[in-house]
């Protein structure tokens, strides 16, 4: 009897037991459906994480003392190769990788702590961010030996930067529709097509491109393969696309008979969809999904510091309560990734909740501190507010739109 069946004479169903109601429900993504299936278990950070936290804080203090960066600027979208080289030399890139490839062989919880500290301190980590977060780990797990030996140590040294080659002009959220084609030619592949919204393609060394190498099949997920593209080689051109604030971060990347050796392939031929989805769990759950505009929150608190204003206290208290919960959720997903699991739904939840939080900060800040934001403003609050307001739309688009994520979450919850 379902929970909606009215209680007839002599029947007293009460509330159905969880087991009765939800025993057989399994989500498409494999996890147990329903709220109980969500895994956000407490994670105890290893001692090495506390040590790393102290080291990275000391490093960042020294960076700021030397005048190397201004903390109120954008963090993981600030492209600063010199900072990345110093961070690499200090051992803060490729933390989880084997030492043979330049890594520090630490747990991904250590990496989680280091990256969160970088963002909280407003460090300009944009140059190495993609390579460290997803391209490097992807190459490490699925790349060939020559590529691993040549590329990973340079990433870890903060000297080699990556872009992401997933979206195409006609294939944004619908990633399975990619049309960039790679055709085999002996020991090489020949690529033709175009990628778009490719952040930093004009200043990165490589990108990993998702290409079509075969038939999509009935589930549309077949026939895709990933390749590492050397942006310095002939056959690939980069055209700037300026964003609404006039900034140049993303690009269109066009391939015309671009030839890539087979050993630059990442993962097996036809396995591209699986590559991309596992990569996205790393991309979606990290601290960059709720700390993008953390420095605006810091500047806001500084502006309200010492005031005795209940309205400001309420608004700030709400944001801090949200942030505390997000930090815990994101840490929990880092723990799952550390155990080798693929928490796709949990990662999507972190990104959905986290980016909503990011979008709220400027909207709340502007009502608590009366000012007219401007990029050409000496006042740090007004300048930061201007920068964040102009970039906020991207928070809930990049890495999978909010709507795509919610569809994924719904399927993971067992909605069929």
């Amino acid at each position, binding site marked *: 009897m379902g929970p*909606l069946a*009215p*209680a007839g004479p002599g029947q*007293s169903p*009460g*509330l159905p037991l*969880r087991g009765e*109601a*939800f025993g057989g*429900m399994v989500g498409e993504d494999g996890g147990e*459906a*329903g*709220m*109980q299936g*969500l895994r*956000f278990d*407490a994670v105890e950070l290893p001692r090495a994480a*506390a040590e790393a*936290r102290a080291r990275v804080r000391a490093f960042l203090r020294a960076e700021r003392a030397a005048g190397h960066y201004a903390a109120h600027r954008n963090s993981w979208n600030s492209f600063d190769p010199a900072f990345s080289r110093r961070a690499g030399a200090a051992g803060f890139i490729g933390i989880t990788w084997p030492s043979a490839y330049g890594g520090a062989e630490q747990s991904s919880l250590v990496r989680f702590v280091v990256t969160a*500290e970088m963002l*909280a*301190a407003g460090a300009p980590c944009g140059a190495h961010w993609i390579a460290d977060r997803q391209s490097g780990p992807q190459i490490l797990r699925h790349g060939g030996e020559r590529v691993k030996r040549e590329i990973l140590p340079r990433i870890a040294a903060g000297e080699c930067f990556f872009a992401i080659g997933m979206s195409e002009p006609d294939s944004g959220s619908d990633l399975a529709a990619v049309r960039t084609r790679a055709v085999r030619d002996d020991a090489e592949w020949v690529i033709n097509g175009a990628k778009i919204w490719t952040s930093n393609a004009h200043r990165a060394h490589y990108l990993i491109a998702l290409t079509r190498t075969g038939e999509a099949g009935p589930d549309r997920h077949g026939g895709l393969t990933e390749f590492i593209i050397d942006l310095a080689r002939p056959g690939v051109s980069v055209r700037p696309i300026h964003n609404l604030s006039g900034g140049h971060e993303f690009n269109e990347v066009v391939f015309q008979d671009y030839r890539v050796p087979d050993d630059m392939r990442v993962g097996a031929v036809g396995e591209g969809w699986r590559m991309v989805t596992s990569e996205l769990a790393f991309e979606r759950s990290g601290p960059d999904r709720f700390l993008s505009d953390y420095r605006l*929150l*810091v500047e*806001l*608190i*500084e502006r309200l*510091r*010492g005031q005795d*204003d209940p309205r400001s*206290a*309420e*608004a*700030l*208290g*709400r944001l*801090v*309560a*949200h*942030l*505390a*919960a*997000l*930090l*815990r*959720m994101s840490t*929990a997903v880092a723990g799952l990734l550390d155990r080798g699991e693929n928490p796709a739904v949990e990662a999507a*939840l972190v990104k*959905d*909740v986290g980016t*909503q939080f990011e979008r709220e900060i400027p909207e709340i800040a502007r009502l608590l501190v009366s000012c007219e934001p401007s990029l050409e403003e000496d006042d740090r609050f007004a300048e930061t507010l201007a920068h964040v307001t102009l970039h906020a739309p991207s928070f809930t688009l990049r890495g999978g739109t909010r*709507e795509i994520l*919610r*569809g994924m*979450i*719904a399927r993971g*919850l*067992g*909605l*069929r």
Partner: protein
Amino acid sequence: METQEISRILLDQADRLFAQHLTREARAAAETGAWPENLWQAVAAAGLPLAMVPETAGGAGLAPGDALRLVRRSGFHALPLPLAETMLGNALWVATGEKPLAQPVSFSATPPTGLRGAGDNAILDGDAGAVPWGDVAWLLVVAEDAAGGRHLALVAPPEAALPQRRNLAFEPRPKRHLAGVRPVALRPAPRLAAPGLRPLGAILRAQQMVGAMERALDYALLYANERQQFGRPIGKFQAVQHMLASAAGQFAAATAAADQALEAWGGADVEFAAALAKARVGEAAGKIAEIVHQVHGAMGFTQEHPLHFLTRRLWSWRDECGNEAEWQRVIGARVMQAGGEALWPMLAGA
């Protein structure tokens, strides 16, 4: 056996016990305001009111985190009893060196009441506010004497019936006035009660809300997959999927906030942990209640469907022991005093 496993077994037992006894008739009877003696006896026989009492004092000796997970399960089942209150009451009372109390115990979440006189002549002064099951339960209040010393006062149930007053879930919440009331016993306030009882109560309500949300969302998912309109389950519609995905995000954040509070129980800064939990969980409660009702349509607005046992509790509990705004101000005031750069170490660790 691992502690985790013992805790798992106990929680499963409690689940079965609640499910077995919480018939529709039992729920309906409890909502009239009548004391559900049979239900209480079953829960007491399982030792649940003594869950937080150490084994040496005759209790189950659960770690606070596990005991608070039990409180969460009581919310999941919409248990119409002062179980959370009695667990807290016994933990506090035993911490003063006394034996656990055999009867249901409740607490006052108001600021400490006044205390005139000393020893056997001590008389309370003030108001306990709306007391959960205040007409049948023994009452613990923190009382402050003229010198600022804090005591835990045990007050007997009222001799005459109090005017009926229920919360939105029709749980008894009569108002109790304490002016001139002589406590049955007075003990120095234990360390657990140092921040007062309001933050502790806020943590209990946060746990209960997370439990109630979980079940309300389980109902909504079930309904969305079963209910057919336009020839397909309503869960196939993106509008419905997005509402539920958004609710799942609220639930995940609420769970995280409630989890940090149960880890902080008994620690140095329970007040801050309570504030983070009650502020975040309370906000999620309102949003989730709205969404689960929207998904259930008119069916969820009926007495027939059990959804209201959960949502009416969410609407009550989010306001009990301090609403979101109150606890947000506690957090905000602290952050505004410490400054922007102090926030990160406050959350991530020094």
